[in-house]
C-alpha cells in the first residue's frame, strides 16, 4: 500500500505542476502584457508600469512562474487588482459558501440515488425499474440552472418556503442552510439521476455473480444479498462517478450561484472576468483544477481501499 500511495502522490504532484503550467501560460503569457490587458487600451504608460511593478511582471518568465507557484504553496495568491485585498482571503471567504454547497449537493444526490438505484436493481424489469429508468433519463436531460429557475418559481415565489436568492452568511446557520437548500437540490437532482443509473447497472452485473447465488443458497433473502454482498462489490463504478461528480458539482455550483445570486466562487470568477482581474481568475481556476485533481487522487485511494487487487496494478 505504501508503494501504491507513493506512486499516486508522485502522479498527483506531476498533474498539479502540468496544470499550473497550462494556466500560467494562458493567463500570463498569451495576453502579452497582462498589466496592459488588465488596464485596457486607454491606460497611461506610467499606470501600466506601476501595475507591472506591483504584479511582479518585470522579471523573467521562469522566475515569474516560480514566484507564482512558490507563493501559492504558502497560501499567497497575490493581491486582487480590483478588490485591493489578498486573493487568498477573497477565495477563502467564497470557498466557505461554494464548498458546503457542492458538499451538500453531493450528500443529497447520494441520498437520492442509493435507494432508487437499489430499488430499480431489486425490481429489475418490473414497473419500479421502468419508473426509475424513465425518471432518471429525464433527470439527466434537465439543465440544472433551468431546474433551479423552476424551483425558485415554485418554492420561493409561489409557496414562499425558501428564499429566492442571496446568502445571509454563516452567522445564522439555519438561515444559511435554508438559502443553500434550493441550489443544492438543483445541483443534486441531475447528478442523482446519473448515479442511480450507474448503481443500478453495477448492481445488476454483480447480482449475476456466483457468490450471490451461493449467498442466496445459504439462506440469505434477496434484500440481504443485495445490501450485504452486491452493494459493496458494485461500489467501484459508483465511486468513479462520485469522484467525477464532485468536480461537476463544483463547476455546476459556479453556474447555480448565478441563478441564486450566491456570493461564492462562481460570482467571484465572473466578476473577475468582467473586470479583467486576471490574478483572481488565475487563482480561482488553479483552485478548481486542484480540487478536481485532488478528488481524482482520493477516488483512486478509495478504489484501493474497496478493492485490494487494484493496489498492485497501475
Amino acid at each position: 500500500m505504501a508503494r501504491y500511495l507513493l506512486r499516486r502522490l508522485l502522479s498527483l504532484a506531476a498533474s498539479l505542476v502540468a496544470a499550473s503550467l497550462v494556466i500560467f501560460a494562458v493567463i500570463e503569457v498569451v495576453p502579452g502584457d497582462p498589466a496592459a490587458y488588465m488596464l485596457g487600451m486607454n491606460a497611461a504608460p506610467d499606470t501600466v508600469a506601476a501595475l507591472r511593478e506591483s504584479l511582479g511582471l518585470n522579471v523573467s518568465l521562469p522566475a515569474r512562474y516560480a514566484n507564482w507557484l512558490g507563493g501559492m504553496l504558502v497560501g499567497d495568491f497575490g493581491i486582487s487588482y480590483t478588490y485591493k485585498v489578498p486573493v487568498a482571503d477573497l477565495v477563502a471567504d467564497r470557498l466557505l459558501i461554494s464548498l458546503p454547497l457542492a458538499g451538500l449537493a453531493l450528500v443529497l444526490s447520494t441520498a437520492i440515488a442509493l435507494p432508487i438505484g437499489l430499488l430499480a436493481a431489486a425490481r429489475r424489469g418490473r414497473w419500479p425499474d421502468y419508473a426509475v429508468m424513465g425518471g432518471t433519463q429525464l433527470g439527466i436531460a434537465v439543465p440544472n440552472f433551468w431546474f433551479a429557475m423552476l424551483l425558485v418559481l415554485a418554492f420561493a415565489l409561489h409557496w414562499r418556503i425558501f428564499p429566492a436568492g442571496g446568502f445571509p452568511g454563516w452567522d445564522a446557520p439555519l438561515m444559511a442552510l435554508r438559502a443553500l437548500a434550493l441550489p443544492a437540490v438543483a445541483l443534486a437532482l441531475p447528478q442523482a439521476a446519473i448515479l442511480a443509473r450507474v448503481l443500478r447497472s453495477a448492481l445488476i452485473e454483480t447480482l449475476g455473480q456466483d457468490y450471490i447465488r451461493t449467498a442466496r443458497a445459504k439462506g440469505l433473502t434477496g434484500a440481504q444479498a443485495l445490501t450485504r454482498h452486491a452493494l459493496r462489490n458494485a461500489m467501484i463504478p459508483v465511486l468513479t462517478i462520485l469522484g467525477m461528480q464532485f468536480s461537476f458539482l463544483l463547476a455546476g455550483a459556479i453556474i447555480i450561484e448565478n441563478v441564486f445570486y450566491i456570493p461564492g466562487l462562481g460570482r467571484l470568477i465572473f466578476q473577475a472576468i468582467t473586470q479583467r482581474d486576471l490574478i483572481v481568475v488565475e487563482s480561482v481556476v488553479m483552485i478548481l483544477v486542484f480540487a478536481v485533481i485532488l478528488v481524482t487522487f482520493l477516488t483512486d485511494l478509495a478504489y484501493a481501499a474497496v478493492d485490494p487487487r487494484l493496489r498492485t496494478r497501475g
Partner: protein
Amino acid sequence: MRPGLAIGIVLAGVALAAALTSLVWTPYDVTELVISQKLQAPSALHWLGTDHFGRDIAAMLMVGARTSLAVALVAVGIGMGIGVPLGLLAASKPGWADELTMRGNDLIFAFPSLVIAILITAVFGPSAVNAIIAIGIFNIPVFARVTRGGALSLWTLDYIRSAQVAGKGRARISLEHVLPNIANLLIVQGTIQFSLGILAEAGLSYVGLGAQPPLPSWGRMLAEAQTMVTLAPHVAIFPGLAIVATVLGLNLLGDGLRDALDPRLRHAR
C-alpha cells in the same frame, strides 16, 4: 424498433428540422424588436409568446437550435478528430506513446469545459467559438479513452496479429482493421457527447461565456428570462423544454443505437 429509439429519433429530428428550417424560414425575424408586443402569452399570432423585447420565442428557439446543434456538433468533431487518432496511437504503441497520451488525457480531464471556457474568455472575451473550443477540448480525452479501450481489446485478436504477420504497419492496421471495428462505439459515444455538448453550450451561454447577442441561443434566452420569470413564466419554460427535449432525444437515440449496433447488449441491460 424499440420505443425509446423511436422517441429519440423523433425528438432529435424535431430539433434538427427546426435548426435547418430556420436557415430559410422563421415565423418572425429574430432581430426585430417590437416593444409594444413584449411578454405576450402564447397565442395564434405568436405560438410560444414573445420575450421582453417583443421577439417571437418560437423563431428564437428555431435559430437557437441552430446555435446549440452547431456548437455541439463541431465540438464532437474536434473531440473525434483529435481524440480518435490519439486513442488509436496509444493502443497501437504500448509504452511511451500510450503513457504520454493517457497522462495528457488525465491533465485535460482536470479542466472541466466550464473552466476551459473561463480561461479562454478571460483572455479572448466571450463568443460561441470559445464555447466550441472549450467543449471540443474536453471531448478529446473522452474519445481518446473510448478509442483506446476499444482498440486495445482488438489488438489481442488473431486477425489483427495475422495482419501484422502479413507485414502491415501499425498505422495501416489501425486504419483498416481497428477503426472500422470500433466505429459503433464511436457513433454511440458521439451521440452522448453531442447531447452533453448541448447542455454545456446552454450552460456557457447562460453565464455569458457562449454565444453573444444578437445570435439567439437557448442558454442566453434562459438568462434573459430569469428576471421576468414571475411576470411571464413562458419565457423561461419554453427554452428549457427545448433543451430537455433535444438532450433527452439524443440520449434515447444513443441508447437505442448502442442496443441496435451491439446485439449482445439487448439482453444484458
